[in-house]
């Protein structure tokens, strides 16, 4: 059997598909855990993937009020951004700043998805997306601390640093917690998920069905995978640096996330912003320990 060379396009494509399948399974596990904690049997673990594939053969409806071609293009942008983040991050171990950019563009597309359809519910969701862009704060604090500590933001160098000096989690525990909150705010059913809260039907996703929802879910699964991988690599890169250990810890972190999501209620918009801010400020205290 011939393996594709690392860095070739076929290799990257295969990695992409693997990450998509694995991320989908992780989100399925997440849902299962939430159900079990709440005393329900819950859907099977493959359900999230099946859900995504199902949307690919469902009929696509585009509201007449929507702003075309933005309505379609912005969803494609959402998944394209995470494809880029995946290629730069886990596959090529490139600069972390590109992943920050991808997160920022993800916020923009969330906002755009909500606005483009013209429905009042999605508009509420997108207004909240702007509000929740304050999750920017942990995003600036964590890389800043990592940069001051390691003097580099290229992921491969960060990993090398951690192999030499031990994991960054030991030095920057508060920054790691802030990043964990960031990760938490990207998982489904999380307490900070004001943008897709059920109080506004489905937030910015209310109008999106059919193929376009499938593409969106593809992007979200990849995004979850990339953020999880970044969290593990940046703060635990010294311990978990083989594919197997990373996969196992990803499952572990997903279980923890499941527990948190199942046991916490949805927080009101301004309070959600406030809590994320408090964690970011806590991370700033970490500067004293460097």
């Amino acid at each position, binding site marked *: 059997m011939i393996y594709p060379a690392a*860095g*070739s*396009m*076929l290799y*990257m*494509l295969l990695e*992409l598909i693997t990450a998509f399948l694995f991320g989908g399974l992780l989100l399925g596990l997440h849902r299962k855990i939430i159900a079990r904690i709440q005393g329900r049997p819950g859907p099977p673990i493959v359900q999230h993937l099946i859900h995504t594939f199902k*949307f*690919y*053969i*469902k*009929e*696509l409806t585009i509201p007449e009020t929507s702003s075309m071609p933005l309505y*379609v293009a912005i*969803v*494609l*942008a959402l*998944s*394209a951004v995470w*494809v*880029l983040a995946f*290629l*730069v991050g886990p596959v*090529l171990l490139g600069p972390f700043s590109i992943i920050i950019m991808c997160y920022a563009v993800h916020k923009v597309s969330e906002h755009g998805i909500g606005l483009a359809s013209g429905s009042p519910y999605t508009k509420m969701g997108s207004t909240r997306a702007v509000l929740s862009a304050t999750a920017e704060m942990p995003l600036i604090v964590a890389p800043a601390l990592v940069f001051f500590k390691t003097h580099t933001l290229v992921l491969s160098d960060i990993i090398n640093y951690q192999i030499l000096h031990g994991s960054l989690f030991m030095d920057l525990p508060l920054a790691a917690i802030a990043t964990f909150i960031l990760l938490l705010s990207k998982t489904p059913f999380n307490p900070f998920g004001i943008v897709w809260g059920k109080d506004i039907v489905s937030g910015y996703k209310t109008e999106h069905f*059919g*193929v*376009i929802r*499938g*593409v969106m879910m*593809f*992007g979200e699964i990849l995004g979850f995978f990339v953020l999880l991988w970044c969290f593990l690599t940046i703060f635990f890169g010294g311990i978990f640096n083989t594919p197997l250990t990373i996969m196992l810890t990803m499952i572990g972190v997903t279980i923890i996330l499941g527990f948190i999501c199942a046991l916490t209620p949805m927080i009101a918009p301004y309070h959600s912003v406030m809590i994320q801010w408090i964690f970011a400020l806590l991370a700033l205290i970490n500067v004293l320990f460097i």
Partner: protein
Amino acid sequence: MKIQKQTKNRILAVLTTLPILIGIILNTPLVISVAILTFFVPPSTYYLGLVLMALPKSKKEEDEREKITFTGY
């Protein structure tokens, strides 16, 4: 001349998948393959999805769907 929606989608699906296939065959340099994957994976999935979505309609299912008349309200 107006192209039918299904034909248009098929053409676009082919057009968006083609660069990926070409990239795999030619073994393009790193930066170009990253760019190709970023730009063409989401639209190709989208258009392939659109083609898939329309497929069952052209067969028996379409007739069966028409048989069931709506009797709500």
